[in-house]
């Protein structure tokens, strides 16, 4: 009924025939990007709720007899509302899940070589989405203005300040003056609720448009069947109704999981951290920033030198050069590993010894840096941890490469015998 009413006015049938009948290839790993998208939707919904109640200001106001920044007071008041704390936790957990899902999605694309021509652009768009999502998480850190927030942001301020040549200017631009300044919270709030979400929505739209235009990569198992049929269409299920039903139930399952986690596992308890005070609390950022944080712990503190008048400090290496370098390596992958023709089927990771083992080694390296964020609890000296990190990632790379080469030699021999 409603559809008919709308169709008479908007000619929806055309749209339905063109887009909703598109096919989506089925493979268990093709839903990872959807986890990220759905987490983003949950983030927006909970973010709207929080945005109505949050006060982006550091003006001191009374709260239970003590003077605290009004941003902190407003978040404490949100926590006291019925469901308030749960909504805040759902927001924070969804952010962690979104960034994790993007990373796992990126790994899937990497290991199956789906980034190859013609999908280099979408690889870069996806990579920017990952970076901007972390920017959203970072600006969100400061907003409750607890002792934790201020310490975490102060660390980032020093990292921005350590950029050679333009560090002072960059840090003042990002933090609206020298942090802590009264302008920092309003500027971060604007970035967190306006600038970054708009960029994310735009890039997600572009990511999906390119996906629709280029079509999804298909599982290898489709290849023979497709050649036998001689068809050009993707083999899979149509967006409407099959894929839509799967996605929708998947969304609600994710929502259920996030609510469950948020209900039982506390996250960022600002009441425990308290308002900003002198002294650095023993704290650790969320897992994705632990990579950089761990790297900063490992790097020797006296490693300073000058290049063309620019000062390179340990913070420059750990906080600026290392993340930039990692992103550049990721960005270059589709341009360094090129296939022969257009890649429309996913590759078997076992058949690509070099790229797969490189990915495993790199993955272990990043995991070890997360562990390095915990060296104080693990009672490992930074020097020992540096050795462990380098050795374990090199070992993972070498061993997996050797094993995959052996496997492939066996496979080739098997093929020849047959």
């Amino acid at each position: 009924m409603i559809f008919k009413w709308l169709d008479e006015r908007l000619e929806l049938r055309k749209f339905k025939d063109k887009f909703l009948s598109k096919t989506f290839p089925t493979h268990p790993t093709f839903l990872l990007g959807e986890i990220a998208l759905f987490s983003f939707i949950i983030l927006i919904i909970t973010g709207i709720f929080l945005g109505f109640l949050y006060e982006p200001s550091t003006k001191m106001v009374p709260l239970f007899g003590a003077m605290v920044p009004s941003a902190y007071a407003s978040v404490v008041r949100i926590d006291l509302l019925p469901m308030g704390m749960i909504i805040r936790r759902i927001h924070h957990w969804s952010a962690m899940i979104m960034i994790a899902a993007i990373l796992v999605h990126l790994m899937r694309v990497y290991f199956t070589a789906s980034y190859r021509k013609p999908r280099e652009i979408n690889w870069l768009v996806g990579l920017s989405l990952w970076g901007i999502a972390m920017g959203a998480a970072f600006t969100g850190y400061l907003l409750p203005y607890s002792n934790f927030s201020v310490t975490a942001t102060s660390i980032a301020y020093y990292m921005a300040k350590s950029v050679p040549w333009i560090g002072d200017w960059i840090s003042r631009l990002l933090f609206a003056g020298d942090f802590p300044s009264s302008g920092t919270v309003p500027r971060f709030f604007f970035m967190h609720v306006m600038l970054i979400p708009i960029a994310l929505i735009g890039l997600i739209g572009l990511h999906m448009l390119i996906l629709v235009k280029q079509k999804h990569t298909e599982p290898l198992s489709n290849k023979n069947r497709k050649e036998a049929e001689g068809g050009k269409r993707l083999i899979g299920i149509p967006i409407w109704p099959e894929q839509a039903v799967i996605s929708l139930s998947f969304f609600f399952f994710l929502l259920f999981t996030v609510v469950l986690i948020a209900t039982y596992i506390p996250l960022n308890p600002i009441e425990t951290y308290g308002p900003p005070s002198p002294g650095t609390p023993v704290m650790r950022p969320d897992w994705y920033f632990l990579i950089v944080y761990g790297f900063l712990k490992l790097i020797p503190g006296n490693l300073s030198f000058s290049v063309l008048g620019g000062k390179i400090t340990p913070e420059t290496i750990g906080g600026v050069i290392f993340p930039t370098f990692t992103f550049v390596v990721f960005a270059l992958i589709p341009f360094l590993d090129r296939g022969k023709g257009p890649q429309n089927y996913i590759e078997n990771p076992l058949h690509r010894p070099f790229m797969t083992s490189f990915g495993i080694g790199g993955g272990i390296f990043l995991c070890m840096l997360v562990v390095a964020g915990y060296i104080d609890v693990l009672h490992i000296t930074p020097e020992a941890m540096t050795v462990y990190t380098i050795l374990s990632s090199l070992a993972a790379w070498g061993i997996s490469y050797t094993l995959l080469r052996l496997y492939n030699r066996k496979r080739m021999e098997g093929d020849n015998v047959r």
Partner: protein
Amino acid sequence: MVDEPSGDKGDKKGITRRRFTLGIIIASIAGALGSLLSLLKILAPEEKGGGYVSTIKPGDRFIYAKGNNTGDYIKVSSLNIGDAVLAYPEGKTSNPANIVQLIKLDESAYKAPTHINLTDQGLIAYSAICTHLGCTVSWVEKQQSPDTSYTECFCHNRAYSTPPEVQRSWVALHQFLLHRSGLK
């Protein structure tokens, strides 16, 4: 781009009409974007004296920065050897760069490169802001031998050398002038 209008083909020496138009367009876009660059200056405010520039002066009196007696004057007698407290100069607590760590050790323990003339009755003041990532340092107290206690920064788990001897090689924090009038 190759098929230029026949009218332009004639004069090879001068600028073609197409190139001229293109040049004007590029120049105007560059000019418009260039004028926006001035905004970047406005958006990065420079706060003189704020941020992480300490305003501690000789003669400042130190007060507790943390704990139950926050705001009270720190008395030499209230600190034992091996103790350290976080302190602010009185009336300058709004500047986070002013936080210092007041350490009390045995007077005879101080040796170069510590500026011995800047110590007072076994007390020494260091900036509590770590030179690396701006975290506030903490004091690791060794009960058995107070002189081997040291300053540590949690953010990167490294120890600063403290006055008695260089325990673990690390850059020294900025040492402040401790004037007799700074303490009560």
